[in-house]
């Protein structure tokens, strides 16, 4: 059983996160690698939240780009128009994500799974419409430019290396959060809900409350990711937050491994590099993407991580306890 304090796996991940940016940053194409790390981190934060919602609680959201966008715009506007420092803007972006998640989740999570997904889809469209049409606030299609970098202790966060570490810290935070939750009583309740809601209720789980909790945590993480995105790209516009992004997020989680903790990392990696790998068949990119999604769900719903874990479980057949780095049950 789990002991209090951090497991060994965390120390490995932390070590990697400290060393990797330095190593990659020093290479010839250092800036490119750091860019990849940053995007990887941002998508992993997003993916972790969605994984908690979809992989562990079994609720689908096709509008998560909306919360990503809300975080980005809120953080940006707070800094540009109200001169908030980044260190206030970021948590408030997360809070904005959480609050909008609560507002949408509360009336709609009583619906059956896919009906709820439809509501999230509609919400995503609605939010994008607001980004486009509320010109006085968001500058519409032209978007917001000259978004400032964070400022602290004189560190130049406009440079890639410091920003990479910034993102790494929050990525670690997201992974940690999901891992802790999943292996706790709360996480087991989520899983019960995913498997059979009525049965879960009969064991004393307040299904609505837990669904909302799961959703709000995922939108909170999306808000934070949005803030990190905005202050890295220095430019955001509504086209950054379309339903295609929402679908990509789902693909990240599915391909990486629904219901595993570090699945989103692998999924993000795959999705970041897939356009490069498939460049020769560029026209068929989305078609292949869709087919992969279907095939993975039918034949390997556990994704990359799940498959690896199943293999390692077969090897260590004497072990009977759930290990926290992997798939929780």
């Amino acid at each position, binding site marked *: 059983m789990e002991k209090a304090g951090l497991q060994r796996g965390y120390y490995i991940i932390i070590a990697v996160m400290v060393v990797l940016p330095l190593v990659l940053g020093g290479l010839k194409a250092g800036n490119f690698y750091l860019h990849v790390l940053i995007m990887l981190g941002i998508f992993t934060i997003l993916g972790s939240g969605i994984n908690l919602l*979809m992989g562990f609680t*079994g*609720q*689908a959201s*096709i509008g998560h780009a909306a919360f990503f966008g809300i975080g980005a715009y809120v953080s940006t506007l707070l800094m540009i128009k109200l001169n908030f420092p980044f260190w206030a803007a970021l948590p408030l972006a997360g809070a904005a994500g959480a609050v909008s998640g609560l507002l949408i989740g509360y*009336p*709609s999570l*009583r*619906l*059956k*799974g*896919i*009906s709820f*997904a*439809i*509501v999230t*889809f*509609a*919400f995503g*469209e*609605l939010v994008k*419409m607001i980004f486009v*049409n509320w010109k006085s606030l968001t500058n519409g299609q032209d978007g917001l430019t000259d978004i400032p970098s964070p400022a602290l202790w004189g560190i130049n966060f406009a440079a890639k290396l410091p920003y990479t570490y910034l993102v790494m810290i929050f990525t670690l935070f997201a992974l940690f959060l999901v891992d802790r939750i999943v292996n706790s009583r709360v996480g087991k309740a989520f899983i019960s809900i*995913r*498997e059979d809601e009525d049965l879960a209720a009969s064991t004393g789980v307040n299904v609505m409350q837990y669904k909302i909790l799961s959703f709000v945590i995922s939108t909170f993480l999306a808000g934070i990711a949005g803030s990190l995105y905005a202050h890295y790209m220095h430019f955001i516009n509504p086209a950054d937050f379309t339903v295609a992004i929402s*679908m990509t997020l*789902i693909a990240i989680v*599915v391909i990486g491994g*629904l219901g595993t903790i570090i699945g989103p990392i692998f999924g993000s990696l795959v999705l970041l590099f897939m356009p490069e790998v498939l460049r020769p068949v560029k*026209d*068929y990119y*989305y*078609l292949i*993407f*869709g*087919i*992969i*999604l*279907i095939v993975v*769900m*039918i034949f390997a*719903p556990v994704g990359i991580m799940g498959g690896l874990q199943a293999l390692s479980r077969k090897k260590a057949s004497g072990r009977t306890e759930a290990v926290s780095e992997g798939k929780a049950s």
Partner: protein
Amino acid sequence: MMVFLQFLLNGVMLGSAYTVVALGLTLMFSIMHIVNFAHGEIFMLGAYVCWVILTQVTGNYWVAFLLSMVIVFFIGMLVERLCFRPLYEKAHINMFIVSLGLVIVLQEAATLIWTGFGKSLNTGYKTVRRFGQIFITDERLIVIGGAVILIVAALLFFQKARAGKAMRAAAQHRMGARMVGVDINRVSSLAFGVGAALAAAAGSLLGPLSMLTPTMGGTVVMKAFVIIILGGMGSIGGAIIGGYVLGIAESLFAGYAWSEWQPAVGFVILILVLSLRPQGLFGRG
């Protein structure tokens, strides 16, 4: 007043088509619990198949319309067998993700085969009729007429046909139905096929009114679910009423208000209804 009636008539036409789509989805989802987000893409497929038959095989709209339904019916059964049946025992979300994959695959395939340029589905009925100061084309009348026939047929199917009753039994209790000899797999196949055929029919009906594009099914599925949620899950009558409510509301809103916000209508109605009456207008308590 006349303007209002014009909008109303347009809304009835939209509502008729929406209802057909929603009935197809009710069959798949509310009754057979098959989660299929690609319903709008089947709608699009139906329109394109109709167009292909119309332009390559026969010039007769009605033949193309019916053939399209038949072809999509079989495609639907195939899709059910390959993509959905393996997932019935798993958590619902798996079916949902597969159907998302289908959305992408169908849209991309349509773009690759028929390009993104709009195609024109020409019924051949060009007459514009006039009632007082209200104008309506024959094409729109066909939408209403065709949809009503399909709706009535669907209602009869559920009430009378053995397959329809089997579906209702299976919806109540999958295992129980199996125990009394209902072949769940065949019923699911049939339900999916019929549901797909209905979506295809709606596509062929609405197709002539604007250009066919691979993304024309985009918001359709969302509207269909909004209708089902509005009308109450599992309620066929609710789906019918919900369909007309949405169609008319959209038409009036687009007519009188900012058309750029028009897609928001369904969403706002949905949130309002859900907050005030969670089980939908006609849902079971």
